């Protein structure tokens, strides 16, 4: 075999996955068990599990302890918050580790505007540049997605959890979740931060305590879960209108509070929220389940009297009700395929359920322990657009990575590099 044909076969091997035009590409974070260092990534493509330890397969190393959130920063970069490892891990869409930072300990949830990653933290110290900043309460850090360094951090409420980016602002749900152990009380507020200056602009009081767990975003609307305190105060779901907040409307006109748990929530392709969960009290030991879909616009207009339905497509609702321990819920924003996970008994691997957009159960797949957090990758040859994913517009300005995932500033002509998630041969420009 000549060198040339060797090179050709090598290149075609590299390009084959791209030529197969994968449509459904889902990354699923399995949290693993706390302090067992067994967080793992499942990579799922077109109805098949490619790997239940994708990060290990690609990088030959472990992901860390309790991965807690994952987002696509832009077409080339994905950020993962690994809570108990105190690590924010950056990977390319094909799973290669690019960079990692330990500057944001006890990190929780992620948001992005495409250039910066914003991350909430329960911790009290953050390395900003070369020095440590200390906070009495929790904070939000801003990481430059090109240098992977924290460039600013701002104090918010105690134990800030969910975070969303909308129109130049960050909306941060404060839990005060350590209230049952520490001396402070639960928080009831959403902190609104100017993302450019990293200053708190406004604090919206929702009247509901402990704004904990997954926060979903549908355009200008957020769905925020309040589990209550699990004693006298029951769970609630809050729909917040970010534009009303920015417009400076009074707190009460910015949100509506619904008597449901939104423990697991997600956004549908038509802009609704799915919210499932249970309202539980230690006092009685009773819990009541709800499986709802929320039209945020109608819910806001009618102050929660309308806009709440139990209409999931096809068999989705019936199937979810049978799940022993629901642990995650997701709709692929590109394709509308629906996903849920079952954590079962927490020592065995969980199960990933997949439904078609019409709600036909397509399959159940064995995954790892505590499968919780989803990210859909853009389908190959995808041309549509999505509201809340901001693609990097200037293709030739996008950062360039080598096949090891290391960012390259001066590429060598003729070598293969990755830009915007695609492999290509660099030519002299």
């Amino acid at each position, binding site marked *: 075999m000549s060198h040339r044909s060797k090179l050709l076969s090598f290149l075609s091997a590299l390009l084959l996955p791209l030529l197969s035009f994968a449509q459904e590409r889902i990354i699923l974070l399995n949290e693993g*068990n706390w*302090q*067992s*260092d*067994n967080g793992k990534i499942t990579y799922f493509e077109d109805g098949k599990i490619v790997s239940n*330890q994708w990060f*290990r397969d690609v990088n*030959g*190393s472990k*992901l*860390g*302890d309790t991965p807690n959130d994952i987002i696509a920063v832009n077409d080339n970069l994905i950020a993962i918050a*690994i809570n108990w*490892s*105190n*690590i924010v891990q950056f990977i390319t869409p094909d799973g290669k580790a690019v960079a*990692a930072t*330990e500057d944001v*300990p*006890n990190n929780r949830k992620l948001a992005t505007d495409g250039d910066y990653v914003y991350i909430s*933290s*329960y*911790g009290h*110290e953050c390395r900003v540049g070369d020095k440590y900043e*200390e906070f009495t309460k929790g904070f939000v850090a801003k990481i430059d997605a090109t240098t992977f360094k924290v460039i600013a951090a701002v104090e918010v409420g105690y134990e800030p959890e969910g975070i969303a980016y909308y129109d130049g602002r960050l909306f941060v749900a404060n839990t005060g979740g*350590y*209230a*049952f*152990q*520490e001396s402070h009380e639960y928080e009831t507020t959403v902190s609104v931060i100017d993302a450019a200056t990293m200053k708190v602009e406004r604090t919206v009081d929702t009247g509901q305590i402990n704004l*904990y*767990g997954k926060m979903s975003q549908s355009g200008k609307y957020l769905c925020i879960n309040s*589990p209550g305190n*699990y*004693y006298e105060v029951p*769970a609630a779901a809050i729909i917040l209108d970010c534009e009303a907040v920015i417009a400076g409307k009074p707190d009460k006109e910015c949100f509506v509070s619904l008597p449901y*748990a939104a*423990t*697991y929530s997600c956004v549908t392709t038509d802009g609704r929220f799915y919210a499932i*969960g*249970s309202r*539980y009290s*230690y*006092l*009685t*030991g009773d*819990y009541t*389940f709800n499986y709802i879909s929320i039209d945020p616009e109608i819910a806001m207009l009618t102050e929660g009297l309308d806009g709440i339905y139990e209409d999931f497509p096809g068999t989705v609702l019936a199937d979810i009700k049978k799940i*022993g*321990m*629901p642990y995650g819920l997701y709709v692929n924003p590109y394709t509308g395929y629906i996903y849920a996970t079952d*954590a*079962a*008994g*927490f*020592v*065995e*691997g969980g199960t990933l359920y997949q439904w078609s957009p019409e709600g036909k159960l397509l399959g159940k797949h064995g995954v*790892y*322990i505590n499968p919780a957090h989803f990210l859909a990758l853009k389908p190959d040859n995808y041309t549509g657009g999505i509201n809340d994913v901001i693609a990097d517009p200037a293709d030739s300005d996008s950062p360039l990575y080598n096949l090891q995932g290391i960012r390259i500033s001066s590429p060598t002509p003729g070598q293969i590099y990755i830009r915007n998630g695609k492999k290509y041969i660099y030519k002299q420009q």
Partner: protein
Amino acid sequence: MKTIPAGLLRISLCMLVMGIISCCSVFAMETADSVLHLDEILVSANSPRKLATVQELSGAELQSLSTTSIADALKYFAGVQIKDYGGLGGLKTVNVRSLGAQHVGVYIDGIRITNAQNGTVDLGKFSLPTLESVSLYNANKLDVCQSASEYASGATVYMRTRKPTGDSLSVTARLASFHTYMGRVNAQFCHNGWSGFIDGEYLNSKGDYPFRYKSQYEDTVGRRTNSDIEYGRVEAALFKNGFSSHAYYYQSERGCPGGIVRRLSDKYNNVGREWDRDLFVQASYQQSFAEKFQLKLNSKYAHEYLRYCTDYLENQNTARVDNHYRQHDAFMSVSAAYFPFDMLAVNLAYDARMSWLDADLKMFCPVRRVDQKAVAAVQFNYRSFRGAASILYQHFKDHTRLKVGAADPLSRFTPSVSLGYTFRNLTLKAWYKSIFRAPTLNDIYYTQAGNRNLKPEYTKQFDLGAEYSYSSPDWFASVQADVYVNHIDDRIVCLPVKGTYTWSMMNYGKTYCRGLNMTASGRYMSGPWNFSLLTSLTWQRDLNRTDPSNENSYNKPICYSPTLSFGITGIAAWRNYSLTVSELHVGERMWSYADPEDVLSPYNNVDLKLSANFSKVLASLEVNDLFDVQYEHIPRYPMPGRNFRFTLTYIFF
């Protein structure tokens, strides 16, 4: 047993018969202690006491092992799994035949050490030098005059305090790896039938041992931090005839190290720190009347203080927990035995225990538990047949000002029955026991976890066993084998509440367990030489029978439970010197069902102990984990590798 005087031989035989000591001691230096067992009330040689399934380490054998705590000694028994978070400060609990640590009752001189808060006893808190013997009974001991609580656990560990036989004063100093320093003073007396001792011990250890994780996905090298411990312990005991008493105080501060997880820097976060202050005083009195009656009174008061902090001083980024727990526990029992005929013994007993728990947790209210137990038991022997049966009644009632009230009272009857047949040196036995553990105060009332609707966790045990022993003037050998089946229902575990982000105690889980326990021991004596070989083997298959619809876990082995484990200990003694070599093998254990790679590797631990015993000076050198095997009981909690201990004791008189 050529070298043992006839009188002593008789005593040893009595002890054998009593089942207190399964193998008689062959070390001359132990004779003085053994004599004291004559004070015990002995019944005829065909007493049904030998019915119980027991393993024991006593006297010189116990002291010959390379051990720092009771947990170290128990790991040599068949059917025992030790759970250890590593290091000197780590919590050490035992699990017997997969029943779970909370089904193991731990007794010191016949009175149970309890912890109403969490139901487990940290065996790391008890050290060996003051003990005469450590025994493990599956189900329970079968004595003729027992308290009701002695029938109330699935397995029982007895620690028996050594009664002094003369006046002495000694000091001990120890130097060990990982910056460990220990000092001990022991004073004892024996006058006019009274005897007693005071024993004080202080230990300080940094516990900064190195560890390494090397696999396909990592090569993590580090040194354990926050594994330090400092403790002081003072014990005193007083005995006369049927009266015995014991006072104990323990105070410690220790680090609670976390799991070794991926970190970019080599900084492995600490989880917390713990301060303990434990105090108990106990007394018991035993008297026989007219050879037909026996009466035993036990009483105890215990106080436990625990402060737990997350380590936020060094780690600013975790929850700032600083909680204080206080427990008081008062216990009284009265047991009576009646022997209407030679072949029958009837045991009736009533126990009452009152426990108070207070904690500065939010949403917590002090709780008081009244725990009453009554037992009726019979034991009989007829020719070569023996039998025992008991019915135990337990009643638990909690009191609290909590708004929703306390959990409903719990009362249950549980039976047990044992049968035995002896032919010459061979004894066959079969027993059945049903027992439960009540939900602990933590299980029911702990903030954001407690569940007032918990049911008790039941165990049912079936056992078939055989024992054979052989003795000649030079030789002694015994073999014991048991096959068993256990069922555990309604396991009490902490699980997330469906559809929420919070956790709660729940009854979830059934276990079905089959196993084989074997022990074999032999001794040979010749002139100045003494050789002992002690072996134990556990083969166990315990299966998760929780959820038949879950094919990922149903009928799979229980996590952390090895199929095979065994221990071999050889002791060679010559005049004043002795060498002990122990090898412990623990087979592969899975720790999750999710991935075939989620297993803890099998390991072999070889320990050595060399001691020299002169009239005024005792010296010993120990090497633990001789081959520096890196192993874990809990994933990501590395155990210390090879370590050394040098101990010197000086006896003033």
